[in-house]
């Protein structure tokens, strides 16, 4: 057996906490929540254990995406302050271990989803993982400032998968939920990328503020928030959700658009003056949580 290089931390077997960090648990929590909302908003409920398994599979699929994303972007992560302490750029883990972990987790999540719920949900989960890894991470992210727009589709799958896991078919409401997350993603990420744009510029990622400028990004944030608000309120007039959801969605979306308008009128060029951008970013996370909570509450209280 060859002698182990004890001076290189990556030569050690990685700590289990680093495998957990590879799955991006904070991102996973939002994915799990939106998947759960899709499942609970469905008109029929699967047995508890199958519903739990569906959400577990969505979480594992999101974890696979996080791991494969970090495997592919280890060199880029090393150049950004925000990501330099992740297990791979920090040298705490071997790259191949991350690749094997991500691929294994991805296969396992799809297989378990198919066996426990239905193969349409499993196929959607597989498409979302492949879309995130191949279309977003490998293809679009390093090439185009519109990376977030198309890549947002990957993050929009969970409510659709949750619904399909429960019902076995696609319907109008989960497609609208997909559209809401899809249209929410650009304002959410561009608000963040405005106040950390020096990080993206240093890493050579063509995020919109780096390529098209700050003012252009602020305009695009506002423009995207309008169809997002329309998609968020749409289930009410379409008769797919009740008044509880409709009124709350209208209020939440109004606040979102108002915050996006404040971003539009902000003239600061340095992160210190980007209060409106930081407020919008923080509110955008709350917005999605609140919107989906109200949707489920409306479905169960009605």
């Amino acid at each position, binding site marked *: 057996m060859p002698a*182990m290089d*004890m001076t290189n931390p990556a030569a*050690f*077997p990685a700590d*289990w906490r680093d495998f957990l960090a590879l799955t991006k648990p904070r991102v996973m929590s939002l994915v799990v929540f939106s998947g759960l909302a899709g499942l609970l908003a469905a008109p029929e409920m699967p047995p508890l*254990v*199958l519903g739990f398994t569906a959400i577990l599979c969505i979480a594992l699929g999101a974890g696979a995406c996080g791991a494969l994303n970090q495997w592919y972007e280890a060199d880029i992560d090393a150049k950004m302050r925000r990501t330099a302490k992740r297990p791979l750029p920090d040298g705490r883990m071997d790259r191949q271990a991350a690749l094997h972990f991500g691929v294994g987790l991805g296969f396992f999540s799809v297989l378990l989803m198919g066996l426990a719920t239905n193969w349409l949900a499993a196929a959607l989960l597989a498409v979302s993982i492949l879309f995130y890894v191949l279309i977003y991470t490998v293809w679009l992210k390093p090439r185009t400032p519109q990376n977030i727009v198309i890549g947002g589709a990957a993050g929009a799958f969970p409510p659709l998968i949750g619904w399909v896991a429960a019902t076995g078919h696609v319907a109008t409401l989960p497609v609208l939920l997909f559209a809401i997350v899809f249209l929410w993603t650009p304002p959410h990420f561009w608000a963040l990328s405005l106040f950390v744009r020096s990080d993206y510029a240093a890493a050579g990622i063509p995020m919109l503020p780096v390529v098209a400028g700050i003012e252009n990004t602020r305009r695009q944030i506002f423009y995207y928030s309008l169809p997002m608000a329309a998609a968020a309120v749409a289930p009410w007039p379409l008769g797919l959700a009740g008044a509880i959801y409709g009124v709350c969605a209208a209020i939440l979306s109004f606040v979102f658009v108002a915050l996006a308008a404040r971003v539009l009128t902000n003239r600061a060029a340095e992160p210190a003056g980007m209060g409106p951008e930081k407020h919008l970013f923080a509110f955008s996370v709350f917005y999605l949580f609140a919107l989906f909570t109200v949707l489920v509450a409306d479905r169960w209280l009605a």
Partner: protein
Amino acid sequence: MTKPEEEVVRRQRERAKIMAWLLGAFVVLLFFITMAKTGMNW
């Protein structure tokens, strides 16, 4: 054992324990999935 070797063994033990728990949980999950899929409610 030297300190780095001790660290390697500690990590291997921790990982083995976690894998054992996860495998156990998976077996229990498969049991309940089978119950639910076969319609055996109790």
